[in-house]
């Protein structure tokens, strides 16, 4: 009886007050330290575990249900956080995980798959040590290796792009990391010019139909703009001062302009230096507006700034202009759930209710003469909007994106749709409540000219089978269901963005 009462007293007061912690637990007791490595049983969340062993996976001769279109040839590359747990510790934030790049190769012989970790300095050191050694975006870990610049923390985990025949894994805090396009072997950080070595290169470059690649890098109040040619070499770059410092994830490019949305979200450097994580040091000022910054593509100089009500923005769909009017679409996210951590509640593998307000599409029109801005919204809970690559920075009619059609409390999307902006209609397919749907890309049909003529190709996870798959749709008949499903013999961790070449 006495022993039971002692146990109950201890568990209610917590181990901390008994001074029984060892060093690792002390670190976990910090409000932003790593979490203990417990993972729940929720079937739909298992891929959030990541690959704890840090090993690559390869498979060939994948089983296909349905029929793959004969004209679909090329590779779907994807990137996402594949390593989230080491040495009994888990990251707090989904964005912390080290990059795992996938290549789904569609060839005459069928489909093969590779998933390989980007061998950054951080990944190699931590894999050898079997422990986290460096701070992450949302988790405080005292550095065991020198941190001399952003690339020392580079996880290369957010997106992929191919330019000039070279494949890059992208992470907005630092350099692009080059990989071999066939084997995914890591070749090293890419330096575009000597004075740009180690400068951030965002995970959302925009490729125009002529092959020019535009990108930006943001640090504090400064912005660097990159213009990269078809040959993969830097043609121009420009360093600009922004009206305020802001966390910038994505941007938009139209015929004449580069457009940025600056949310009133900035980094408190004093907090960052005194031991808060990057997320913990972010400050949201609801009294400030969101700023639309428009830059002239010809001169790479700031053209004008307009104000909107404050919102958290991650992703853009597309933008176009006619000289006077600029139109762009973006996704507005919930700032509360991002900052307070409920966004990451699913990272422990337990089904949690209430993911915050849904992220929704916004359609913005800016009159560049009068400075007036108007915004329309849609109500679907969605993310990862894409357009036909032939209309990037041109007037677009269609947006493609995953969405949630069922209860709002699940963590992932269950459906995919094409939104016709001209008619306000949608063409939608629901995979079912047991499936988590990821970003799907529009792959133009070779020889076609019509916007939207092609295939919609993307990945998902089937919680009943506990396997990941790739889906291929006729992009003009999505509600008819996938033409083909390609099954993997295992699951791959959930990811962010893709690129098809």
């Amino acid at each position, binding site marked *: 009886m006495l022993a039971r009462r002692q146990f109950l007293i201890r568990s209610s007061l917590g181990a901390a007050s008994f001074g029984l912690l060892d060093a690792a637990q002390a670190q976990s007791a910090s409000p932003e330290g790593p979490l203990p490595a417990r993972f729940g049983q929720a079937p739909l969340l298992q891929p959030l575990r990541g690959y704890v062993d840090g090993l690559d996976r390869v498979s060939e001769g994948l089983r296909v249900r349905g029929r793959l279109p004969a004209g679909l040839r090329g590779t779907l590359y994807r990137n996402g956080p594949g390593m989230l747990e080491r040495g009994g510790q888990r990251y707090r934030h989904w964005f912390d995980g080290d990059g795992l790049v996938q290549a789904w190769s569609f060839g005459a012989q069928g489909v093969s798959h590779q998933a390989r970790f980007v061998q950054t300095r951080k990944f190699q050191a931590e894999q050898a040590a079997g422990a986290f050694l460096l701070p992450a975006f949302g988790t405080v870990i005292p550095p065991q290796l020198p*941190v001399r610049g952003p690339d020392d923390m580079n996880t290369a985990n957010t997106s992929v792009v191919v330019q000039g025949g070279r494949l890059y894994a992208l992470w907005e805090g630092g350099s692009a990391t080059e990989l071999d396009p066939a084997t995914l072997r890591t070749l090293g950080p890419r330096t575009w010019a000597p*004075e740009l*070595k180690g400068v951030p290169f965002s995970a959302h470059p925009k490729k125009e139909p002529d092959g020019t690649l535009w990108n930006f890098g943001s640090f504090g109040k*400064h912005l660097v703009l990159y213009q990269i040619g078809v040959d993969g070499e830097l043609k121009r770059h420009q360093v600009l001062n922004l009206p305020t410092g802001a966390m910038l994830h994505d941007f938009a490019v139209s015929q004449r302009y580069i457009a940025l949305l600056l949310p009133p979200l900035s980094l408190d450097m004093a907090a960052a230096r005194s031991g808060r994580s990057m997320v913990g040091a972010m400050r949201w000022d609801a009294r400030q507006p969101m700023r639309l910054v428009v830059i002239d593509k010809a001169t790479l100089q700031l053209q004008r700034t307009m104000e909107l009500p404050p919102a958290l923005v991650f992703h853009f769909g597309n933008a176009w202009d006619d000289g006077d009017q600029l139109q762009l679409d973006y996704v507005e996210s919930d700032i509360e759930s991002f900052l307070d951590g409920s966004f990451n509640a699913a990272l422990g593998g337990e089904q949690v209710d209430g993911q915050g307000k849904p992220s929704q599409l916004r359609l913005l029109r800016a009159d560049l003469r009068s400075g007036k801005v108007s915004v329309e919204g849609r109500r679907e809970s969605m993310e990862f909007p894409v357009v036909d690559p032939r209309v990037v920075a041109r007037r677009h009619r269609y947006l493609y994106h995953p969405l949630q059609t069922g209860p709002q409390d699940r963590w992932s999307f269950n459906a995919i749709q094409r939104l016709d902006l001209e008619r306000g209609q949608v063409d939608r397919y629901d995979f079912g409540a047991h499936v988590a749907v990821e970003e799907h890309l529009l792959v133009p049909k070779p020889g076609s000219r019509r916007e939207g003529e092609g295939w919609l190709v993307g990945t998902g996870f089937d919680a009943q089978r506990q396997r990941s798959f790739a889906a291929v749709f006729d992009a003009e008949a999505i509600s008819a269901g996938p033409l083909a499903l390609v099954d993997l013999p295992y699951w791959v961790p959930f990811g962010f963005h893709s690129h098809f070449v």
Partner: protein
Amino acid sequence: MKQVLVPLVALLLSGVSAAATLEIEVEGLPSREGQMLVAVYDKAETWMKKPLRANRAVVSAEGLVKLRFEDLPDGDYAYAVIHDANNNGKLDMNVMGIPTEAYAFSNKASGSFGPPKFEAARFSLQGDAQQRVSLK
């Protein structure tokens, strides 16, 4: 007795040396190009501003560098080493002000997005010493 004491005292006092040699070996260079620059400081007030002594050495074919400082009085010091890969005599930076060449500090000290404090890089020199620094 006094004739014995004076030489004995002189012998004891001669252990307080005024001329130590510090030898620094730098390893883990990212390339074999260029030269190593090293600057030694003796107080926090001048740390990273006005070195007490500076030296440079070409990187050897094996990718190692040895630098010597002679006649240093015993006391506290800290130093910074820079791999000047393009031989322009300074630590190059990118447009963010972040160094693009490798560097390191004594006492395995490292800062966060900047140099460590003098106190973190400080070590005590008591007679001749050989130290190793890694740029990795």
